[in-house]
């Protein structure tokens, strides 16, 4: 039989790949003013709709081509990474704080606290989220803070569910009972006994949630309820490029690739973290 050589990358390799992808995006975001060859808002109508540099009509000064008003696509993607990353991280962080706190309380106290918080989780999950987000942003207006708040509305559920189930099993553990048997109070029990034990899971869920938030933010920008129309964001570029798909494929393709790679990176890192940090996995 013929042996087929298959390449099956291990979790560590994939984790490093993810970290590399995220690292690149992070570098671009931080170093945007230095790295980007043009300002993202520089208009040059004589150079509009230039294809990428390797095409016959391309210009080496505009590596990934230009858009319909002659703005450099590569520069706009580099500047756009700032929005994607900051929104993704902030939404994930906010969701982690809110969701973990609620999940911890629900799991630890049980009873009506648990029922109320579980009900909130179910309601949140039952909502068509994108529709809800558009509604909220249309009513309250866009901007960084509202967008982050709305995205956190989607991510907190992930944290709450995972933390709740872990807190429920931790609550019944001997060391929690032993702590109670020497008079350790509830706030300290939550902070010093339960929280450190669920922290690894929070980190794992955090990386997946960041990926989800980046994607949703791009979708919202695409739909026109973005962070700030004057700052380029990947979703908004995608939206603009949609009108030129027939004539200038590069306008939508490159921002799309940027979104895909960033989300992939965050997910790979998340997978690797969940393997590393799950005590049962060792």
């Amino acid at each position, binding site marked *: 039989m013929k042996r087929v050589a298959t390449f099956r990358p291990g979790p560590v390799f994939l984790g490093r790949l993810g970290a590399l992808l995220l690292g690149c995006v992070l570098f671009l975001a931080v170093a945007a003013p230095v790295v980007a060859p043009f300002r993202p808002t520089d208009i040059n109508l004589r150079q509009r709709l230039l294809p990428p540099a390797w095409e016959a009509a391309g210009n080496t000064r505009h590596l990934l081509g230009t858009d319909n008003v002659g703005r450099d696509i590569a520069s706009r993607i580099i500047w756009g990474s700032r929005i994607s990353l900051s929104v993704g991280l902030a939404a994930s962080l906010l969701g982690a704080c809110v969701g973990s706190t609620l999940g911890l309380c629900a799991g630890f106290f049980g009873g009506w606290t648990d029922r109320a918080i579980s009900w909130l989780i179910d309601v949140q999950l039952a909502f068509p989220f994108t529709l809800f987000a558009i509604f909220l942003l249309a009513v309250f207006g866009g901007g960084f803070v509202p967008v982050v708040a709305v995205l956190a509305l989607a991510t907190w559920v992930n944290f709450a569910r995972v933390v709740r189930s872990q807190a429920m099993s931790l609550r019944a553990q001997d060391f929690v009972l032993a702590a*109670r*048997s*020497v008079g*350790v109070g509830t706030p300290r029990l939550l902070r010093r006994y339960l929280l450190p034990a669920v922290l690894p899971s929070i980190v794992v869920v955090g990386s997946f949630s960041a990926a989800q938030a980046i994607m949703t933010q791009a979708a919202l920008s695409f739909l026109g309820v973005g962070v700030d129309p004057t700052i380029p964001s990947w979703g908004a570029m995608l939206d603009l490029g949609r009108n030129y798909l027939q004539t200038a494929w590069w306008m939508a393709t490159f921002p799309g690739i940027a979104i895909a790679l960033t989300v992939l990176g965050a997910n790979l890192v998340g997978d690797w973290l969940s393997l590393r940090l799950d005590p049962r996995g060792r």
Partner: protein
Amino acid sequence: MSDTLLDIAGLNVRFGDVAAVSDVSISVMRGEAVGIVGESGSGKSAAMLAALRLHPADTAIEAARHMLGGQDVRRAPERAMRDLRGRFAAMIFQDPLTALNPLLTVGEQIGEVLVRHRGFGKRAAKAEAMELLGQVGIADAAARIGKYPHEFSGGMRQRVMIASALAGDPALLIADEPTTALDVTVQAELARLIARLQRERQMGLIWVTHDLALMAGIVDRVVVMYAGRIVEMAPVESLYRAPLHPYTVALLESLPRLNTPRGRILAGAPPRVDRTLTGCAFAPRCASRMAQCSETPPLFSRGETHAACWALA
């Protein structure tokens, strides 16, 4: 403060339909060591958790009298209970592998009690924690105090548990099968340690176990439990010399002796307590049962021994 540390009468503990503990009365005086013996599921641990009101939320407890350190446990607010736990009464658990927080150093765990109950500052707590580690026989306490539980062996971890139980300088120590999870060689050592600490500190001690042999040298009084009820209560010498209840007799006969290499095995299994038991729970396994055993026997007294058996009526 009176010399009765814990005084429980008519304690019932129920999980749903399961009557884990029925009509149990236990009291412990200062300086007294009481042993509670019974098989797994006889309700001894459930009774001890209920004594400190540490039972799970889905458990119902009721008692005719339930005094701990001068507080009526049935009515005391949770805050008052937290002040009692660790300070007035502390507990040592069966499995030292799971009863320590894996994410805190042993020094932090012992220090926590000192800060909480005895007003120690951070630095003083550390010094006192080292002193306590020394008292429970952990050598080189200064080096061990910053270590995490997983860096200790089972016996060492149980010593740490004991140190943290002693940290609040409790009047009453409840040891729930403190040696069961340990190596046989370590068991005797730890039993001696706890017995010595109890004498030195004049604590009340409740020693929960199923190991009759190990308990003999430690306790003054023994309470034998079967299927959630007390079947016999006696001073330790009378219990070993002249047990009254057939279950206690069978329990003692099952111990291996030098002249009979294997103890006699008690046939049958303890009843399930999930349906309402009527009559003496031991009757199905009892060689000398009689018609009256279909009714629940009260405790009959013969001198200082009390046993729940109709044969004594």
